[in-house]
């Protein structure tokens, strides 16, 4: 079985990553990130003055929302190839990817709906904005579990010549640990843990970007090494 399909899908990742980076840099809500302490009237005013920028990025993100899925799908295939006794982590990984992507899409929608009619009651605009930030920053539970599934599969790989290098497991656990504080962003309105803070926002996005780049390179090497070996399908 050839790995051509995996390689083709894997190579969509750089394009997806570039589009996400552009979206992130262009998004008015992120430069600088809106403070959670902002009163509803100011949030509404912000949306009124930035309709074009917000809607543009929202539509772009709506289109590219799932474009990192191929990377995760290739990761899932490689997880299923590790010699563990079952596919349990592959299944958990796939479900987590579905949940994470949906949370991102919901965040996108909430920002979009807020910008669609910015003259709406400021309370509602603020509510939509809060909800969008919640969905964007907080649901790290699924990403963390995703990484842990990958890491455990690597640790437990019984092959004499393991699929993944062992450091990838450590790396995934480190990434999970760095992402986890994001869950507590809903408890704070200021400081590093608030959704515009150094830990929940800046660190989180940088960590995630690093993760995508590293995983892309790792998977590229693994898929190239896989050669004609049969894929173990879940």
């Amino acid at each position, binding site marked *: 079985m050839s790995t051509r399909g995996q390689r083709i899908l894997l190579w969509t990742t750089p394009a997806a990553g570039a589009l996400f980076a552009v979206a992130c840099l262009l998004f008015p809500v992120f430069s600088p990130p809106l403070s959670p302490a902002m009163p509803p009237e100011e949030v509404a005013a912000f949306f009124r003055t930035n309709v074009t920028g917000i809607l543009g990025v929202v539509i772009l993100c709506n289109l590219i929302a799932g474009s990192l899925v191929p990377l995760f799908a290739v990761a899932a295939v490689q997880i299923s190839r590790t010699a*563990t*006794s079952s596919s349990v982590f592959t*299944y958990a990984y796939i*479900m*987590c990817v579905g949940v994470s992507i949906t949370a991102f899409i919901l965040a996108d929608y909430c920002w979009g709906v807020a910008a669609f009619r910015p003259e709406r009651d400021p309370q509602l605009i603020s509510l939509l904005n809060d909800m969008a930030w919640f969905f964007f920053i907080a649901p790290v*539970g699924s990403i963390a579990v995703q990484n842990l599934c990958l890491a455990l599969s690597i640790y437990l790989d019984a092959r004499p010549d393991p699929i993944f290098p062992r450091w990838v497991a450590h790396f995934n656990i480190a990434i999970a640990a760095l992402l986890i504080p994001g869950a507590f962003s809903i*408890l704070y309105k200021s400081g590093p843990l608030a959704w515009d803070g150094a830990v929940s926002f800046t660190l989180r996005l940088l960590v995630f970007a690093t993760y995508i780049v590293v995983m892309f390179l790792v998977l590229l090497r693994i898929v190239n090494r896989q050669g004609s070996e049969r894929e173990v399908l879940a």
Partner: protein
Amino acid sequence: MNERVEVADNPAAGTSPSWRRHPKLDQWIAFWIVPGFFTLFGIVFVPLSFMMPPRSPGSSTPEIVGFMQSHNLLIACAILTLSFGLAPITNACYVMQVKRMSVSPVFRYTIIVGATTGAIVGMLFPMFCFGLGAFRTGYDPPILAMLFDFGYLAYIGSLGCFCIMWMAFGLAILLDRNNILPKWLGYYTVWQYLTELMAAPVWIATSGPFAWDGLMTFWFAMALYVPWQIIVYLCIYRAIKNQPVHELENAQFVVASSLPATRPTAHA
């Protein structure tokens, strides 16, 4: 888990620590996460936030505001946000056993999709409705009341994704010829489907036995669901324990290692 202790006494093969050589370790890790996850859930839902048993849909506005803006609710939501990723592991345990059955892969793919959508609409979304209400003081009471309704309706009234999941799971058990899980568990799973049907009226009734905190929709469903959840895990425990080593997906590597192939089955 006594197998693991004994295996640990074996001389390690290669450079890996010996605990990693236990052939079913991945399944056992996933399995033991489950009770932990449900215990955490129980603590967060009941004594921490009093989200469960459900508040009455007929609560007065001050009651709703008081509940929605309690700090404990916010902490509960943060904990759930952190741990809801364990739900897919829970479901992966079912899916793995379905994979071992003699049935078509459509069953496990159906369960995967049902579980994914279920985690989103049945957990992520209601959690954020409650979290949002608690996050910002100063929302208008009608907005809080809407989030309250949305949260409970999405949590208790999410039907279709679980229907399809229980249907696929129950049918897979009934059609299976490998006897991975007992047949009567398949029939019990049919009642899970029944409880989802019973929960449909929560979208209509605002009080009485069919409201989301009602006897018919909530308490009877709980009386069926809680034992089911426990029984299903006992059955999955047995299924993992009884799985012969040569059927494991890593069998070719495990048999070659220091562990004798017959050893774990001797405990089964």
